[in-house]
């Protein structure tokens, strides 16, 4: 291969700064969209299990729509189409005055996509280990939402901790598609460096390693949480 490797270029400014800034945005997008995914996903997952037909249907519609449209298309819809559908004043506000519209669109778009998948996992977890306890919990006078919050959700979350970890990892990697609406996150910055220096292989190699390290940190973090609060605690205690 006739390629002139030069790793040193990455240490020069502004490229070194671009990589760091890209990493920062990747982290912010991942965390922001994961917070949205978890809160929306948990709510929709519980709603899917509620003993109320109307609530179940609303949650199902959300889940089926958002997990069946490609996330890239969803980002475009949110970014380019959604503001046009709103009343003029509001649409204009989003396009002109909303601070950092690319970031907000990215975390909302990615968060709602992941949220639909999280919701299905939460529903599966509750159905597998918790839902049979609902009559007992209601019989003590707990309201349905209390029963979910205090009993069924903690059990369901523990049961699906593994799949949720994978979902978080997917969300971190999915943050890279937000470059299509102009987020200068890690992948975008690597391309940026390639355009300026023609040393794209080095830049992408670094980005690859950083994604890998991020993923491993997420896995480690989730494992610590699982040990501390999750089912692992019980597996240990009862063995």
């Amino acid at each position, binding site marked *: 291969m006739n390629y002139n490797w030069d790793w040193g270029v990455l240490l020069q400014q502004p490229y070194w700064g671009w990589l760091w800034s890209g990493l920062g945005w990747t982290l912010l997008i991942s965390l922001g969209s994961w917070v949205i995914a978890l809160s929306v996903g948990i709510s929709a997952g519980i709603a899917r299990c509620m003993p109320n037909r109307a609530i179940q249907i609303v949650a199902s519609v959300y889940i089926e729509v958002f997990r069946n449209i490609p996330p890239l298309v969803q980002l475009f819809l949110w970014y380019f189409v959604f503001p046009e559908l709103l009343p003029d004043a509001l649409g204009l506000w989003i396009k002109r005055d909303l601070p950092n519209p690319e970031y907000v669109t990215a975390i909302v778009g990615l968060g709602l996509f992941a949220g639909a998948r999280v919701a299905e996992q939460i529903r599966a977890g509750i159905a597998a280990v918790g839902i049979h306890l609902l009559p*007992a919990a209601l019989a003590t*006078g707990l309201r349905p939402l209390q029963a979910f919050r*205090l009993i069924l959700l903690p059990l369901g979350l523990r049961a699906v901790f593994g799949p949720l970890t994978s979902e978080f990892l997917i969300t971190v990697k999915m943050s890279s598609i937000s470059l299509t609406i102009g987020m200068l996150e890690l992948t975008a910055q690597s391309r940026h460096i390639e355009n300026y220096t023609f040393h794209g292989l080095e830049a992408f190699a670094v980005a690859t390693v950083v994604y890998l390290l991020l993923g491993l940190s997420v896995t480690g973090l989730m494992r610590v949480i699982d040990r501390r609060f999750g089912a692992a605690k019980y597996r240990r205690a*009862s063995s």
Partner: protein
Amino acid sequence: MIVLNDIHKSYGRTQVLRGCTAAVKLGEVVVVCGPSGSGKSTLIKCVNGLVPIDRGSITVDGVSVTDKHTDLPALRAQIGMVFQNFELYPHMTALQNVSLAQIHVLKRSRAEADARSEQLLARVGLSSKLSSRPDQLSGGQQQRVSIARALSMDPKAMLFDEPTSALDPEMVNEVLEVMQALALDGMTMMVVTHEMGFAQRVAERVLFMDGGEILEDSPKSQFFANPSTERARQFLTKVLSH
């Protein structure tokens, strides 16, 4: 105390209750028995509204269970219920299982609730198991925790849905003894069970169900000595013969 009037209930096309009428008076112990699929469990789950009914009316202590405006959670808090499969919360200790609803429904402080839970667990003979989780307890112990959990709300009446059917034979008695002690204390109880010995010792009246109907509603002595329907007589010969 508990009044059931002309209860009808279907699951899809299957009619499980066909016009059941019965009453349990204050302080009375009523045993509901009958073959599997006769509707006993469905009937008892209607009492606290866990199973919504199609037709008829139910009142508990004068409050209508079937009225849309009734605050069902508040009503359920006054009726203890014990299930066939215990249904304890597996991620909590025995003490936490008993304290949970006291804290979140009765709004007792944690300290108050735990003190009451300790008393109740002592009453069912489990003082030494406060911090055990359900999977560390035997079936009989789990069922006694679940009785303590139901009692923790200071209920006006207790419902038992086949409380000993999931237990190993040697653990049945420890649960029945707790129930018998409760009955002696004057608790109003409606008990679905196949334990005819318990019925003979403790019940005042026996309801016999088959095919979604209450075929017999008689004082215990009359039910065991001289049941009025042929179906009940057959049932008794089968369950009493072993």
